[in-house]
Structure formats: structure tokens, C-alpha cells
């Protein structure tokens, strides 16, 4: 099982998935192997292997109340999350990348997307109060998912 944490730790709540992944490595023995991929754009394609299950961690925007945790199978991700019409390299998020992989006929890995709704994305490494409050719950959700998948 591969774990990929996405986000920018210098863009406010966008660093929440990274912070949660770091906490996972501190809490588990042995720590899970996590790829901190930042915002890889289409580079995420290179991290996905159709034969290896994956958990994608990311911060989402616009799907609900700040701090809301969303868990989706990867097969449902492209249907359930709104895709921005902007497909600049900066705009290639996990949804766009998985859609591109599907269009190319690539086999999508099994796995899950676990997202947390962010609130503010200003420059800096300070989380909003909503994220600060719900981050422990996000980490617990991830720990539970990992336990279930073992």
C-alpha cells in the first residue's frame, strides 16, 4: 500500500494533508512509507502503479464545511469531486490526473482518496481554526483506514 500526501505546506490549509501524513509517521510503528509529493501536477501519474493500491491524501475546497473529511474510493473520485476547468500544470490535481489516466486507458490503482476541506489558502504555514480543530480527527480517520486495509 502506497500513501501519497499532496499539498503545499506554505499555502495555509493546503498543508493539512502533509501535516496529517507526518503525524502518521510519528504515531505508527513501524511508520508507514509515505511519499510527500507536494503539488506534482501530471507527475502524479508517474507515482501511480495500476498494480499497487494507493491512498491519496489531499486538501479539498468547495465540497462542504471546513474540516469535513471525505473518503472516496479512487474509482469514484473522478465522479464525486468537482474538477476545475482550468487545466494548467498548476491545475492538474488528483482528479484531473486520474481522469487523464482513464482517458489514456491506464489501469487505475485500487485505493482511496481521503481529503479534508480547507478554509484559507493564504501564503504561510498557519492553519485555519477549523483545520487546527479537525486535524486530529483526520489523522484518526487515516489510522483507522490503514488498520482496516492491513
Amino acid at each position, binding site marked *: 500500500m502506497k500513501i501519497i500526501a499532496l499539498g503545499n505546506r506554505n499555502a495555509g490549509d493546503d498543508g493539512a494533508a502533509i501535516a496529517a501524513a507526518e503525524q502518521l509517521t510519528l504515531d505508527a510503528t513501524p511508520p508507514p512509507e509515505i511519499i510527500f509529493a507536494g503539488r506534482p501536477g501530471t507527475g502524479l501519474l508517474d507515482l501511480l502503479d495500476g498494480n499497487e493500491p494507493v491512498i491519496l491524501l489531499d486538501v479539498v475546497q468547495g465540497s462542504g464545511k471546513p474540516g469535513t473529511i471525505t473518503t472516496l474510493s479512487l474509482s469514484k473520485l473522478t465522479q464525486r469531486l468537482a474538477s476545475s476547468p*482550468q*487545466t*494548467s*500544470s*498548476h*491545475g492538474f490535481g488528483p482528479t*484531473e490526473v486520474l*481522469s487523464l489516466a482513464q482517458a*489514456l486507458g491506464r489501469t487505475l490503482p485500487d485505493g482511496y482518496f481521503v481529503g479534508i476541506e480547507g478554509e484559507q489558502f493564504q501564503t504561510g504555514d498557519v492553519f485555519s481554526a477549523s483545520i487546527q480543530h479537525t486535524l486530529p480527527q483526520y489523522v484518526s480517520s487515516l489510522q483507522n483506514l490503514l488498520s482496516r486495509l492491513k
Partner: protein
Amino acid sequence: MSDEHTVSGEKTYKVDLLTRVEGEGRFHLKVKDNQVIESKLNIFEAPRYFEAFLRDRAIEEVPDIVARICGICPVAYQMSAVRALENGLGVTPSSAIRALRRLLYCGEWIESHALHVFLLHAPDFLGYDSAMAMAVDHKDLVERGLKMKKAGNALIECLGGRAIHPISIRVGGFTTTPRASALNALRDDLANALQDAIDTVTWTAALTFPDFNQAYTFVCLDHDQYPLEWGDAIHVSGSGRFPVEEFFDHSQETHVAHSTALQSHLRDGQTYLCGPMARLNRHHERLHPTARTALAKSGLSLPVHNPYQSIVVRAVELVHALAEALDLIDAYTQPEAAFSDYSPRAATACGATEAPRGLLVHRYQMGEDGLIKHADIVPPTSQNQAQIEADLVSIAPQLMALAHNDATHLCEQLIRAYDPCISCATHFLKLNIENVNAPS
């Protein structure tokens, strides 16, 4: 998204979101009696204050800070920064270090150009809204682009420590240099990508281009090699060359009310174009022989004055970067020293390199204490911004004769031809074309 609205002879065309550019902005074109009375590239993304962040930071921190300006071209920011700092400190990197930096820069050109040619610009020519839509019908093309981009990223990762925001560049050289075996391991993928790039030149040259030749003033770095990581002079077409340190005497940045990015003009007020077309027109004879051959076979006429043809030019530069990368790898032996030492001193100095999108100039004032006192960074998109506005004025007569959606697409395609990185200079572009008193 676009709509069309006609009231009392006024015709307004509006696009709420221009896709496949880096960053956010809006364009407004107002036409009255077939005359353009207003053309604004409105960049509203918040200023990012990197020049202010750099003040009172240590010289050693600069490459890592400026790399954060852009995830697509961080190497360019690092290279221009170290060139300026080294000029001020009197440090001349060894030829081995220069070659290694050029190799790293080739990696960035490869990943950036492959991304733009295949995923951002190609959908315009093939009639798709996105690379995802294009991938359904043109899987081989998209896979080719992704493969080339991956080869470029692998080169950056090998030399820079990681593919995005690399960490190995430092004043005087690198923090560490790779073993030859690490670079040789990349050779097969780069050689395959080179063949793909040659095929890409042929493919792009066969595309259909709108008729839009413009009398540009081209500005690029001057060097005895195809300009990339090095060059002490800047060339302005029609008026000659000047030392890089005089850049701010020849180019002027101004603030315009409708943009959070500064706009550049030459001191006489002239707009100018930097980037792949400027480089190729000035330096085509300095292309790698493999790229020269690909260019000759393409049938592309030089000088190139049609921005829509920049997709061919980028393909030629892809060949150049890949061929040169292979040569550099074949000639590589690991340097004995990864960097040259230096001592801080008070100085003000400029450095310039050719980012994938064009000339990137940095100027730093340093103190004896080794801290940055002042920084100026002039990205290529800032320099091209006024020229993009001028181009949209020039293309307006063609727009008026077209159906709304076709006119809108022509504008978007033109803007994308510049591969603008608004996030570097500053995210969406909204386009308004308002035709005042147009016949309803």
C-alpha cells in the same frame, strides 16, 4: 465559459475563464467603430512579495527562496539568481560546473516545453478543450508528451535532488554533484525522448496556423552557444546588444492599474517579445546540429513572426535541449569540487538566463555582512505582458469578422502561445471583448 450580449448596438463578448495558462487574469478588449479603444490584460492575482522576502536574508538562502516562485521553472529562478550573486561576489564557476548547470537547465526546458506543447497548447490546434479530452482521441500524442516531460523531470531530480523546487544549486556551484553512472542511467530515456522530439517538430510544423505575422522587437540573451544558463549581453532586434548589468537602463518596469504584475517596455516605450521565438530568430545557427536538421526539415521560415508558430519553435528547442543533454552526459566526469568558495562583499550585480518562457533577469544589492539589501526580479511573462496586450489589439480586426466562439478561441490560443506564467509574474484569465456601436 463565454457568453454574448448585445444591447443598443454595443456587443460584448465575455469569457470567464481562460484555461491552460499558468495563473489568473482577465482580458478586456473594447472596440468602437472597428477601432480598438482599450486592451487590458488584467492580472488580479495578489502580489507575492518575493523581492521583499529576500531582503536581509543571507546570500546562501536566495537559491532556495527564489525556487519557490515557480513549480514549472524553479531552475531558471535559481540560475539567474546565482549568476547575479556570483557576478557580484566575483565568483566564476568552473567549466565543469557550468556544464552541469546547463544540463540541469536542459532538464527544465524539456519538462516545461513538453508540458506546454502537448498538454496546454496542442488541444487548441486539434480542437479540444483540455488535454484530458484530447487524450481520448490522441492517446499517443499525450503519452509522448508525458514521456518527454518525465525524462526532463528525471534529469532535474538527478541533478537537483528533487524534480520540483530542486535543492542542489548554490552560489559557486552545487551542494553535491552526481556520479556519472547516475546520469548515464538516464541516457536511454533521453535518447528515446530525442526521437520523440524530432517527430514532434514534424507534427507541429504540419499544423494549421492563423495568419498573424507581427513586426516584433525580439529580446534575448546573447551568447556564443544557444542561450540557456549563461550570457553576459542582451540582444534587442533592430538596435543591438548591451551588457546584462545595463538591463535596467534599457528596460523599464511600470505599474498599471489593471494588473498586479509589473509591465516591461524598452526605455523608448516599445513593447517587446522574449522567449522561444526571440531565441530561435537570433540564435538558430547555434542550435545543436540535430535540432538544426529538424528545423530545416520542418520548413519553418525564419525569422518567425507568427506567435501561433511558437509551438513549432518549442518543439525545435525540445530537440536542442535533449540532444545537448545527451552530449553533456556523454562528456561528463564528476568534478573534483562541487562548488567554489567565496567571501561576502558589498556589491550590486545582475544576472540573466533564458527561462523556458524567456529572459529572466535578477539584480541583487548585497552587503559586506552577506545579506541581501535589495532584490529585483523581472520574469519573462512580465516582459511579454504588454506585448500580449498589443497583439490582442492587432488581432482585433480579425476577431470582428469571426463568430463569437471562434473569435474567443483565437484570443485564447494567442495568449497561450506565449505560455504565460501569470503566477510567476502573479492564476484564470477572463476575456471581455466589447464592441461598442457594432451593428446588431
